[in-house]
């Protein structure tokens, strides 16, 4: 929890995730095809690509959320700080406390704003009332939601507007004190103002967190991502500095996609 703002989580290694020949399968359907890439620490990686390109599957593989599906299978290696998250020594429950996730549709749990925020911290054994209060305030401030809800933390979270709900979900993820934040099209259901708020928060957060942002909106990737990866039909077509991907892509398929010729 110390790392919420401090950036202590930045290790000597600049690489947070090292992904090696990663393939995933749902039953007999293959979602990812032999993906290899590195994700840098404390940067924002944008992942773009048309629907069905495997972006979401990729994210859910990184925090092992796909484990919930009975016929999910993974090949290859995903190293987080050098150790394989699918290795026998990794407890997926503990892993997920290091890797927060914000979903495409805001999903506040049907409890109060406060209870939503302390849900994760309480699971890690934090019981101290004052400590929880600090975490709540910090997380809400970081998600630019504090001023709007500070007087009504006991309000059921479902009564917030869509944009507020999504920022609550971001705050809830921050409250975990994670090292990595995965965002799965976090602004697909939001208006431009709410989207801007989320992006503002992200820009602020990248100094302390490694962020992977899956987005259907290529403009969003070009606005906030340091690096961008382009996925197509389960394959990684190209990864590189965002500017390069958008101005001088190495692959014609990337160019077609970012210029809007297909997808």
């Amino acid at each position, binding site marked *: 929890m110390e790392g919420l703002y401090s950036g202590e989580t930045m290790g000597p290694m600049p690489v947070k995730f090292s992904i090696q020949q990663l393939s995933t399968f749902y039953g007999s359907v293959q979602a990812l095809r032999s993906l290899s890439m590195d994700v840098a620490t404390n940067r924002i990686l944008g992942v773009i690509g048309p629907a069905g390109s495997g972006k979401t599957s990729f994210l859910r593989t990184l925090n092992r959320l796909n484990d919930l599906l009975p016929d999910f299978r993974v090949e290859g290696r995903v190293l987080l700080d050098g150790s394989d998250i699918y290795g026998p020594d990794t407890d997926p*429950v503990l892993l997920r406390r290091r890797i927060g996730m914000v979903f495409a549709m805001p999903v506040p749990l049907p409890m109060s704003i406060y209870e939503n925020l302390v*849900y994760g911290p309480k699971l890690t054994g934090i019981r101290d009332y004052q400590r929880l209060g600090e975490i709540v305030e910090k997380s809400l401030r970081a998600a630019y939601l504090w001023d709007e809800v500070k007087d009504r933390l006991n309000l059921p979270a479902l009564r917030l507007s869509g944009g507020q709900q999504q920022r609550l979900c971001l705050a809830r993820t921050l409250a975990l004190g994670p090292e990595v934040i995965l965002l799965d099209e976090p602004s697909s259901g939001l208006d431009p103002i709410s989207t801007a708020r989320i992006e503002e928060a992200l820009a602020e957060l990248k100094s302390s967190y490694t962020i992977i942002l899956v987005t259907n909106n290529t403009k969003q990737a070009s606005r906030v991502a340091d690096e961008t990866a382009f996925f197509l039909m389960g394959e990684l077509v190209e990864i590189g500095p965002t500017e390069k991907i958008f101005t001088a892509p190495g692959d014609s398929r990337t160019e077609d996609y970012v210029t809007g010729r297909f997808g």
Partner: protein
Amino acid sequence: MRLSPRLTQAFVVSLLGLATAVTLVILIFVIVFILRKGLPAIDMEFLFTKPQDMGRAGGILPTIVASVLLPLIAVAIAAPLGVSTAVYLTEYTRESRVTRLIRFGADCLAGIPSILFGLFGFIFFVTILQMGWSLLSGGLTLALMILPTIIRTTEEAIRAVPNSYREVSTSLGATRFRTTAKVVLPNALPGIVTGIMLGVGRSIGETAAVIFTAGSSLRMPSSIFDSARTMSVHFYILAREGLSSEKAYGTAAVLIISVLAVNMVAYGLMNRFIRKRS
């Protein structure tokens, strides 16, 4: 001849309305009929004293006590078992031939006439396990009877909880058990309570299975190992033996009022629970 859409519509609506009205009228008629016949028999003495002369005179206090205890015992046994089974079937196992078999078994069990449960309870609990005619034998038998209903309604309620809640909880570092306890069950609670209330209702009203297992002693039970007579059994015996139709209707009225009250309290509590969360 073809009717115009508007006429068809009007026809269908009036038919549906009529069906609803008939249902409502029958329901009200039954309740009003029993209350009109039964209410005059109810007074403090009827509610709070013991029956005399086999129920021809006096009150029905022991049967009220038995009618409270018996469903309580049944639910105390069946609810934890049934809810746990449903959680296991939905959250911890994959759909397979075994789960389908269990579900099929539960559905069959729910359709078995209660007198067969009574017979089973008499042979197994009363005789083989030597519990005798007792509240415990009756409660266990009723528990078996309402178990399938609780399992199935709980299962449906759990299935209706959006999967996104499970994903969010899991992504926040919760174990499957935590997710079930903190997110799935609270959201399935209204459905679970409905299942349990169906069980309570069935237990309060059950007669055949209870006569065979809890017996029909008119004494005040002092423990769950005593035989006791519930209101339904009392009503049945009073009416069948022609002991006192006045007391019989009085008992029926108390029975109906308590069923209504139990349901109203349960749904009231549930609504408050839901309002607090959304």
